[in-house]
């Protein structure tokens, strides 16, 4: 356990010294502020536009902004955060294969499975902190400007997207132990999400696919019921566990 902690400590030191953490931190803060800011600016923007449109004969009614608009922005923008997170962190294992730095740790008797656990834990901690920080910022501004209680299933929808992020992390880990290049890890992760997203046009697939968890907008509007997300949640958690459990034996047999 102590040896595992030392490896995790090393991972965080790397995240800090290679400036990964600071970049992610800044991006997630910006996203958190942007959601209420965009919502807040919408009426002004609309007013400006309507004056121009009025000249061409179109009239726009006065819009009223609520916290809901800010939450819609949140679900529009958080995929950007997740994407940056994936781009920056997808090399967490592959860069160690390519540089050969793992060899010395493993030839000292450090167990292989602990490498996987350490990397997974680090990614999960990072995602948890960054995601809820972004959520917290948006929540705070929303509470200050408007009233968060208009959003339906707010906590549930936020948890759904959080679990979706963890699911992506488990995919990245699995693809990282199966290939040596981080471009392949990126391509495979992207492909899985993209395909599932496309197939979700089919209602039967949408009812089970983890990509359904991304759709927080329908939840906060109350267009979807929370229980419709139970199966995608269960599928996500099961495949997440399977990916992580599968990664360890594959990594044990991997030639480094």
């Amino acid at each position: 356990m102590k040896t595992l902690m030392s490896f995790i400590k090393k991972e965080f030191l790397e995240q800090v010294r290679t400036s990964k953490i600071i970049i992610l931190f800044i991006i997630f803060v910006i996203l958190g502020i942007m959601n209420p800011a965009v919502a807040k600016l919408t009426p002004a923007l609309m007013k400006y536009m309507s004056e121009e449109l009025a000249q061409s004969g179109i009239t726009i009614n006065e819009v009223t902004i609520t916290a809901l608009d800010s939450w819609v922005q949140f679900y529009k923008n958080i995929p950007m955060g997740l994407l940056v997170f994936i781009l920056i962190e997808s090399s967490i294992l592959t860069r160690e294969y390519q540089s050969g730095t793992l060899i010395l740790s493993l030839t000292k008797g450090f167990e292989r499975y602990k490498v996987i656990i350490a990397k997974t834990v680090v990614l999960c901690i990072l995602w948890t902190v960054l995601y809820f920080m972004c959520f917290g910022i948006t929540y705070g501004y929303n509470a200050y400007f408007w009233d968060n209680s208009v959003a339906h299933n707010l906590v549930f929808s936020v948890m759904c997207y959080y679990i979706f992020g963890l699911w992506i992390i488990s995919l990245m880990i699995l693809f990282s132990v199966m290939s040596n290049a981080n471009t392949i890890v990126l391509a495979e992760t992207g492909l899985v999400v993209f395909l599932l997203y496309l197939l979700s046009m089919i209602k039967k697939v949408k009812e089970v696919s983890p990509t359904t968890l991304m759709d927080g907008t329908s939840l906060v509007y109350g267009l979807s019921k929370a229980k419709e997300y139970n199966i995608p949640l269960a599928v996500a958690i099961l495949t997440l566990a399977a990916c992580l459990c599968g990664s360890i034996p594959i990594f044990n047999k991997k030639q480094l």
Partner: protein
Amino acid sequence: MDMLKISNLHKHFGTKEVLKGVNLTIPEHSIYGFIGKNGAGKTTTMKTILGILKADEGEIIVNGKKAEYGETATNRFIGYLPDVPEFYSFMTPKEYLRFCGEITGMKKADIESNSKRLLDMVGLGSEKHRIKGFSRGMKQRLGIAQALLNSPKLLICDEPTSALDPVGRKEILDILLNVKDQTTVLFSTHILSDVERICTDIAFLKDGVVSTQGKLSDIKTKYRSDEYLFEMAEEADVRRLLERFKNIKQTGNNQLIFNEKEGSVFEVLSFITDNRIPLVKMERVEPTLESLFLEVVES
């Protein structure tokens, strides 16, 4: 007791059979020189011992325990210096050694004292910079330090002196000599003078098998040629000897080589005494490792 025992080790890459049944036994407290041409399979053998490469066939016993591919249990006895060691470049040497100590479960106090001692020993004691900008020689020095950190029973070094300047080479060889009492050393090299200087045992790897192994002195005796070298004072005497003995060869200025396979050396000696020929030098020719290498590996 044997620290390492390799039996019938096979390994191929694609269609290329690199190891074809390597057998190697390394007794405790020896310094074992592992010699072979480029591409002979030295690095491959070492990586298999460490469980980084999967053997096709064969068994490896380290300190009485079987080594398995993908498992790292037997590596606890081993310190390893790869041919091109790679470290976390964002750390300083001191931080790296602390990390190495921590992931192997060493006590804090031991880590502190060992890493300070080792860094001083390899000449990186005052290095405060991150590993990022290190030269190859500096990395090799740090490599030795990390390999010795947890006082391993078996130290495996892959060409430990290849990137070092002459002073550095001498320092590292002295370090290897010094750890002999606590550690068994296996190291591969092309530099035969290094082997001659510190090795107690050697093994030649050729065509995928160990063709010769044993005590350096035994092997030298075995391959000792029956040649004698005479150095004469006078040019005229050289000619006299050449005329009298058909099987004497001139090798240099006033130097003659006589091979005992073709007659007794005493005949030559008695000719010299009978004719009162002045001698500068007479010696039995010792085989050099170079000649051994050529004979064993190249033939």
